[in-house]
């Protein structure tokens, strides 16, 4: 790993420490466990990315800006790899954020429908695209509330990973990434069909469930996808899922 990536790893760690309200130098060094710990801290100080004071260390405003970008890339990458591609997120994402530029990250963000949390449930920093709520025609992922009646989409991801009670309730009904849902009714309450069961739910839950748009989404009747369709477009989501 080169020194640039090493420094970025430190910035990432400092950001998560900031989120957890931690600023102890020991915790940082214990967590990173690097031989050249001192050197990297020095480099960071020279670049004016961190501020140290006695035993505490925290990001400077420039450091924060930079860390924010990296974190955003990291968490969006996790989101992409884990939710969209069905892979193991920790392996890929560490490398990923050091390689891509802002434009690419923004387009991933738009593709994923501006997710708010990474798969661990930590907050993804907002980019300009989220603030402007960019919606392109190609936007492949959208909240369930935007579905039209009778459309069948596949669940991409669910926001609110921290609320275990709620998440568990949702997933016991088999509403989880990859399952097919069909919008039955939107008013007075949303009713969806998911894996053979009709489920009524509140708008605010539906707004946290994001779905993939499918090409031939309007179906005559019945919510279940036939075998043929399943293979064609969404096969990529099921990589690593077979035996």
């Amino acid at each position, binding site marked *: 790993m080169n020194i640039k990536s090493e420094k970025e790893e430190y910035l990432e760690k400092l950001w998560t420490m900031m989120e957890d309200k931690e600023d102890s130098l020991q915790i940082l060094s214990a967590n990173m466990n690097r031989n050249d710990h001192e050197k990297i801290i020095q480099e960071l100080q020279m670049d004016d990315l961190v501020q140290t004071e006695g035993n505490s260390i925290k990001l400077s405003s420039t450091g924060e800006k930079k860390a924010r970008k990296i974190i955003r890339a990291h968490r969006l990458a996790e989101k992409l790899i884990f939710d969209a591609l069905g892979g193991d997120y920790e392996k890929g994402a560490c490398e990923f954020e050091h390689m891509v530029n802002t434009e690419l990250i923004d387009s991933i963000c738009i593709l994923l429908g501006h997710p708010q949390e990474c798969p661990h449930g930590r907050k993804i920093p907002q980019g300009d695209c989220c603030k402007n709520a960019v919606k392109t025609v190609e936007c492949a992922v959208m909240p369930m509330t935007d579905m039209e009646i009778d459309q069948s989409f596949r669940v991409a991801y669910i926001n609110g990973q921290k609320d275990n009670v709620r998440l568990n309730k949702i997933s016991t009904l088999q509403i989880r990434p990859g399952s097919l849902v069909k919008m039955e009714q939107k008013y007075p309450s949303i009713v969806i069909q998911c894996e053979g069961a009709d489920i009524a739910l509140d708008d605010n839950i539906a707004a946290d469930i994001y779905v993939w748009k499918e090409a031939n989404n309007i179906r005559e009747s*019945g919510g279940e996808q036939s075998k043929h369709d399943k293979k064609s477009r969404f096969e990529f989501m099921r990589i690593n899922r077979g035996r």
Partner: protein
Amino acid sequence: MEQKSQQAHKPDIPPIKVGIVGLPNSGKTQLFNNLTGTYNVVANALLTTIEHKVANCEINGHPCEITDTPGIYELYTQSFEEASTRDYLFSKKPDVIIMCMDSNRIKQSLNLTLDLLELGIPIIIALNAIDETCRRGIVLDTRKMFRFLRVPVFECIALSGLGTDELKDAILQARGVKWEFQYGPLIEKGLAQIVQMLPTDLPLKRKVAILLLLNDPYISEFITKKKYDSDNIDIHQIQDCVTSTQQNFQGNLSRVINNRRSQWVDDVYDEIVLQHKITPHEYEKTIARWCRKPLSGIPILFFIVYLVYLAVVNVANVIAEWMDVHLWVPIQSVINGWVPAGFFNDFLIGDYGILSLGLANAFITVLPILSVFFLIYNTLEDIGYIPNLCVLTRRFLDKIGLSGESVMPLVLGFGCKTMATLTTKSLQSKRERYIAIYLIAFAIPCAAQMGLNISILGRMGLLALVIAFSVLIGVEILAGLLLNLILPQEDKGIFLQELPPIRFPTVKAVLVKTWYRLIWFLEEALPVFIYASVILFVLDKTGLLMASRLFLSPVIEGFLGLPIEMVDALILCMARHEAGAGLIIKFINEGLLNMTQCIVAVTLTTMFIPCFANIMAMVKELGTYRAIAMSLMINASSFLIAGTLNWSLILLL
């Protein structure tokens, strides 16, 4: 907690313990009825069974103890009621589990099956409602399923009893399979560590360890509560081990575990399910949609209420009159011929006679009305209409402080208030539970009350019915709004509710259910009717009734504008609502009540003291003190409201 229906069984051979487990509304109770030959209420609705039921029976000569459990989605639990089924599996350790699988919800069922397979208890899978699945164009390959799961799989249609014999044979032959689902090296290592630390005689250690890793809120309680060799275990030490495993694992451990599981479910599903390309049009779905949309749903709701009104008023009254003329009048004349007028004549057929107020009231006045009403109600229940109403009423109920979860108990209150009160256990928010219990006890009439109310008001015309029910609805809303304001705000529970599918009911099932409901009504209520008439008779003869009438007359006559005889009805009401209603019908026939008085009487009795079972359920959920306080509050407000109603009706009409 457990209801035992004892039947003879040989004491020398230990009975095979069989547990029926499955998703909510998957037909467990119907299967239970088929296997045991008993009858318990089955309905096309969730939460029909809320208590474990045990029955002893003989299967091919071998004694069996079969337990029916409330439906669960998985063994990981969030609520107390779900934990009860798990506690049964963990501590009673059945010899055989029958997994009742809803063929329409294969993935959900497979998820639960995986949980059960991990327990290592012999399992038999009953693929229920296989006929519906076929009609939907889905074919299940049971042979492949058997190969994958390595447990016997039987197709069955519980409603018609198909597949019961195969299941019985399988129970006797069931054998355990070694089944270990692998979660990957890191998690397995942690699991092994935790398993070592658990008490040695704790059953199903591996599953307990997995639940610990998933942060199940009830599992540590389970370990410590039971006296499993607990001297040398330290729950904190175990908890530390769990936390360290969770931290060693980069990322969200529960999510990874759940993902591995759903991968397995997906794999099995892909193998066993063959889907036809063209899915047939389902009329049931269209009907369900119409019922849930406001534009069509509200007219449908009113139409059904009107239909019930017509049936109860016209059909039931005709039956009641026929019975009165052809049964009661002859009996009366025979008794009058045998027993001369006086004390004994009064005791038998006087105003408070054991036959007239007890038996005739139950059989001739109340029973015809309940039969007709239950027939319609049971049909609606088997269609699955009632739970689907919660979609229609959801937003409206939100306004009176009931968000989401509590909608279902409230809707269930129209069936049986006691059951509905017990289901509020599943509500996360204390505040909502309180509001729900109050509203259920207050102005919601239960099925029997509803039938009788319609019959009473129907005698006065449709207008009376509309006024009385609008008042009740208004009162309920007002109470909801007030409680919403008074009680401190809390986080709202979420509304995420599975709905039963709309089904065409079978005539036989509806008739059988109506028959049993009426039998149960008579078993439960007839003694109460008779005791109550005896008590009234004694009160009357000792003059106490007169005294209490005098004492209460300012309230009853002055404030409520009701004839003084209503005191009798109120006393009967305290014993059993149906008895009071029966007496009110008698008053109407005698011309004692006019329309305004009928409306006041019905609103009063509907709100007045909830039945004894309901109060007991309230005590169970809220504690004695609060339950009594709530009942008193309900009674006080019911008098106030009925009085106000009386005066405003006098002014208006």
